[in-house]
């Protein structure tokens, strides 16, 4: 427990936290409450009146095949980004976490994608997959006897390309945190297991992986936020939700409903649904993080 280090300053701590509390309340909490409130209203056709509609915005969403399709697309996309991304990053982290030469070089050469923005990543992948001119359709056509890979017309290919681009951009970030987590595992523990005759595979599953669980849970949460929201720029640059609605993930649908179709009640309801999912994930993440703290001390 922290003790008071400077007694006799009753007002100072309030002054110190005031700016943080103010920005959180004004720009986060109050707008969110308004989102929640707005989700129970509907704006009339000419935007002149707002009408209380109870849960009708929510009911309409769950009856809309567009929305349900968007939910499914988001789950597939996020699942790909999280599972494939974390698996590859953990494997690279394990490779890097050895006594090898040029370790500094490898670290920089493997984490730099963290500095790219989703929009830049999307632009570069759009170039690589550009139908007719890009390098990837060219190689695919050569390898598979003239198969025409066109992600601008094939929805499934589009979703796959967008997911791969988003995963690639996040590799750097994930490797950074896995490496930090791996380096915090006590060496004696791994040594003891090895002396007891456990093979590398067993050591990994019985010691390394469980000891990494706080890092893994944290990354699960961050990657989820990334796949839900931060990829907006990547989607907007690459596919704008298309072709059809094949890559129309929730955040993109929300943006369109809010700012292009001006359907504010529905957009607010979508905001609230996303919040509930994020909040649930945040609570789970916190549970795991605190359990570790108890376990370690």
């Amino acid at each position: 427990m922290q003790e008071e280090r400077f007694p006799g300053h009753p007002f100072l701590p309030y002054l110190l936290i005031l700016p943080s509390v103010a920005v959180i309340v004004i720009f986060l909490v109050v707008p969110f409450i308004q989102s929640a409130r707005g989700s129970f209203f509907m704006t009339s056709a000419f935007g002149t009146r707002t009408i209380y509609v109870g849960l009708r915005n929510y009911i309409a969403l769950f009856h809309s095949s567009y929305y349900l399709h968007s939910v499914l697309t988001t789950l597939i996309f996020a699942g790909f980004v999280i599972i494939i991304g974390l698996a590859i990053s953990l494997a690279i982290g394990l490779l890097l976490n050895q006594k090898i030469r040029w370790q500094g070089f490898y670290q920089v050469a493997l984490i730099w994608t963290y500095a790219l923005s989703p929009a830049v990543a999307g632009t570069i992948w759009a170039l690589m997959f550009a139908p007719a001119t890009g390098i990837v359709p060219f190689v695919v056509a050569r390898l598979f006897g003239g198969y025409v890979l066109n992600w601008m017309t094939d929805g499934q290919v589009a979703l796959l390309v967008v997911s791969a681009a988003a995963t690639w951009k996040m590799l750097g970030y994930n490797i950074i945190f896995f490496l930090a987590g791996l380096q915090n595992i006590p060496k004696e523990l791994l040594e003891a297991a090895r002396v007891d005759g456990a093979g590398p595979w067993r050591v990994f599953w019985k010691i390394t992986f469980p000891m990494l669980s706080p890092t893994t849970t944290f990354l699960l949460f961050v990657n989820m936020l990334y796949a839900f929201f931060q990829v907006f720029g990547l989607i907007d640059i690459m596919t704008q939700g298309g072709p059809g609605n094949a890559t129309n993930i929730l955040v993109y649908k929300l943006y369109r409903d809010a700012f292009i179709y001006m359907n504010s009640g529905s957009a607010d309801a979508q905001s609230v649904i996303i919040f509930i999912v994020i909040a649930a994930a945040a609570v789970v993440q916190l549970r795991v993080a605190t359990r570790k703290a108890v376990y370690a001390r």
Partner: protein
Amino acid sequence: MTRKTRNKVLTHTILITLVLIIAFPVIYALITSTLSFKQTYAYPPQLIPGTQLWQNIVAAWNRASLGRLFLNSSLISIVVAIVKIVLSLMAAFAYTHFRFRGRSLLFPMTMVTQMLPLPVRILPTYQLMADFHWINSYYALMFPFFASTTGILLFRQFFMTVPRDLSDAARVDGTSPMRYFFQILIPISKTNIAALFVIEFIFMWSQYLWPLIITTTKNMRVIQIGIKMLLASEQQVPEWNVIMAGAIIAMLPPLVVLVLLRKSFAQGIAMQSEK
């Protein structure tokens, strides 16, 4: 060869392959940025660098007024990073060095911050900016980003490890808390400050959705939107050479920040995941 050397050779081979695979998209983008328009549509795709890099950079720069957008992005990224660092330092100092009513609310508050990313409050925040008459201004680009969970938790973690003797000695000497904060606590937090700067600069530089909706004139756009403008320009087919030149301009500042501050950044991250 002994087994050990063979393993080492294998590890290096795998790592170098991985480095190349991960770098390939950017290498391809770099090559494309040096080609002429005609070369970008050559069949088979050309993988040998051309000589048009400078012309492409100039074309991208002029076409989307990237100079102005570059300045806008730099300004908001630096200011937001600094404000977030200052606010988090202050809050973490209060949290770890004082006892006050409502102190126990600070942790739940940071948790709530994590749960409220922009999309879950996007319409009311937009409305708030309209009420403040901030649409299409730097204020609107920056203010909604000033809350920082990462920063508060990072500095809290670090301040808790600062030995009590340090603050006790300061207090016995009659040093005021604020003086202790500025002259002792902040200087020893340099590594964490640098780490947080990297995180927040990259975060802000990458923003796309909020600048897209909150800015309405060309001179208030940010560089990420500039790339989109290059992609969507009047041409029938994308001018990939010019677009890639723009993309490279947009990716340089955060890369430079990461590479320059990588040591502090790595230490800061290591400390944070120690918990």
